[in-house]
């Protein structure tokens, strides 16, 4: 069995496969303002310790693992809610999940919550990166706790917006495919070419990735042109 991979790598993969390989294959990591603030935000979320309010138990920094997906990670926040406390649109889904087939005795609804600085990021290939990461957490929790996790929540620091994310069949499929791609990519040891598109200016690795050169430019041709120009100017 190969090494389990971090759930965070999944998010990198979904944002840009090259970024994922640069970080997880090549070991490059660049702290920029965005990632540094993200780290601080996460540390705060992890450090606060467990607490209970309004009957909801809030666990921070839980270690998560899935044997099936061969992933490991840490959650920001998982909220455990007594089932009778559920109201609102997903209450029925949660109750159905708790009383449905599978292991019984589910007294709590399990809700993973992920905190993000800034806004949601999307990629042309995989859509919304944050939902995939959240779904991977949900899959880990399901495997570890023997419950169904029908929903997760994303919280965006910049807009102070929360988004409820249904962990539905389509998202589960997408996530499983992304996990398979992640394992294949990192097992290959290769670094895919740069995408060189709108993602690059927002990428913390842009200075190490050099997308403008990694996207198929010829340095040999440049050297020839440059030296010929210099020869002409010298003459």
């Amino acid at each position, binding site marked *: 069995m190969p090494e389990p991979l971090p759930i965070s790598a999944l998010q990198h993969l979904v944002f840009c496969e090259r970024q994922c390989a640069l970080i997880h*294959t*090549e*070991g*490059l*990591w*660049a*702290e*920029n303002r965005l990632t540094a603030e993200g780290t601080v935000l996460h540390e705060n979320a992890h450090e606060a310790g467990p607490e209970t309010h309004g009957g909801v138990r809030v666990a921070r920094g839980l270690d998560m693992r899935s044997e099936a997906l061969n992933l490991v990670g840490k959650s920001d926040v998982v909220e455990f809610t007594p089932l009778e406390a559920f109201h609102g649109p997903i209450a029925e889904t949660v109750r159905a999940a708790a009383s449905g087939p599978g292991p019984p005795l589910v007294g709590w609804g399990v809700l993973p919550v992920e905190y993000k600085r800034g806004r949601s990021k999307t990629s042309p290939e995989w859509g919304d990166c944050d939902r995939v990461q959240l779904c991977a957490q949900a899959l880990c929790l399901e495997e570890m706790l023997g419950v169904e996790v029908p929903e997760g929540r994303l919280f965006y620091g910049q807009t102070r917006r929360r988004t409820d994310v249904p962990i539905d069949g389509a998202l589960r499929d997408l996530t499983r495919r992304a996990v398979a791609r992640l394992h294949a990519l990192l097992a290959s*040891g290769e*670094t895919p*070419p*740069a995408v060189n598109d709108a993602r690059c200016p927002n990428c913390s690795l842009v*200075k*190490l990735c*050099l997308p*403008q*050169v*990694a996207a198929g*430019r*010829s*340095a*040999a041709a*440049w*050297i020839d042109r*440059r*030296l010929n120009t*210099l*020869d002409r*100017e*010298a003459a």
Partner: protein
Amino acid sequence: MKEHLNTLFVTTDGTYLAQDGAAVAVRADGLDAAGEPTGRKETKLRVPLHNLDGICCFGRVGASPQLLGAAAEAGVSVSFLSEHGRLRARVVGFTPGNVLLRRAQYRAADDPAATLAIARSAVLGKVSNCRQVLLRAARDAPDAERAERLRDAARRLETNLHGARRAGHDGAEGATDTLRGVEGEAARTYFAAFGDLLAGDPAFTFAGRSRRPPRDAVNALLSFLYAMLTHDAKSAAESCGLDCQVGFLHRDRPGRPGLALDLIEEFRPLLADRTALTLINRRQVRPGGFTISETGAVTMDEATRKTVLTAWQAKKQETVTHPFLGEKVTAGLLVHLQARLLARHLRGDLDVWPPLLWK
């Protein structure tokens, strides 16, 4: 990733570096009103570690273990150098875990064709930049005779450039050695003309390159600046995960930072030589700032070393455009960009390593 590249140079004997929160505290002997040592250390300066790329300590300078740990964690390397700038020891944190890049580097170093291509870039960069230095000086030369000598040397370097571009194209064996020969010939031509680049004090003369020990003030200056460049090139190689020992133009030799020496070739004329020439020609350094030992070795005094380091740091802050990337950066960042480009070439993103061909 460090983008500011400030180096803290500590040149005063007896200085002690301590950790002060997230900053380095520079502590030195306090002086009383009459300028006499009080016998107590005082904090002269506090510099936040995150503002620094490296700390270079010259001569008798100490540092606390706490500071060394904090610096390593902040990605700031601490070097201990002799007063001539020779590296004695260096404290660095963990290098990026880029084992695949290193393997690619070693494979390339074992492969004659890959070695030739990288060595060629180093030679093209160096010889071309030497030629640019000579041509620029020829334009500003005070007399026609001197201008003609400089242009003549530049023409010979052009021949060397063509030789370097051709080397190995006929599939001949030992092309990298041919290249090394071309590089040596170009260096002799360039240094034969170097005296004509000196326009200032007649006390500064240059009779060819000498090192270990440098036999005149100009050579002492050059050796010191090359040592500073090598130091930066080592950091640059390490911070992108390359092994600074395993070079291409420079073959492996125990204790020799072959890759760092490859990386600095193109920077010697561009940054080091030009800094030395400016310092001499603007009379910012004086012959009196150099002393000759019994064995004929020339060293700088502390005040001169400070002047040189200040000029060096200022040179590295100049804004320039990277010729291949077309990006505006500080001159000090160039060697880091060149190391990253080499890493990208080794990982297969770029067909060849583009040298820094200055205009």
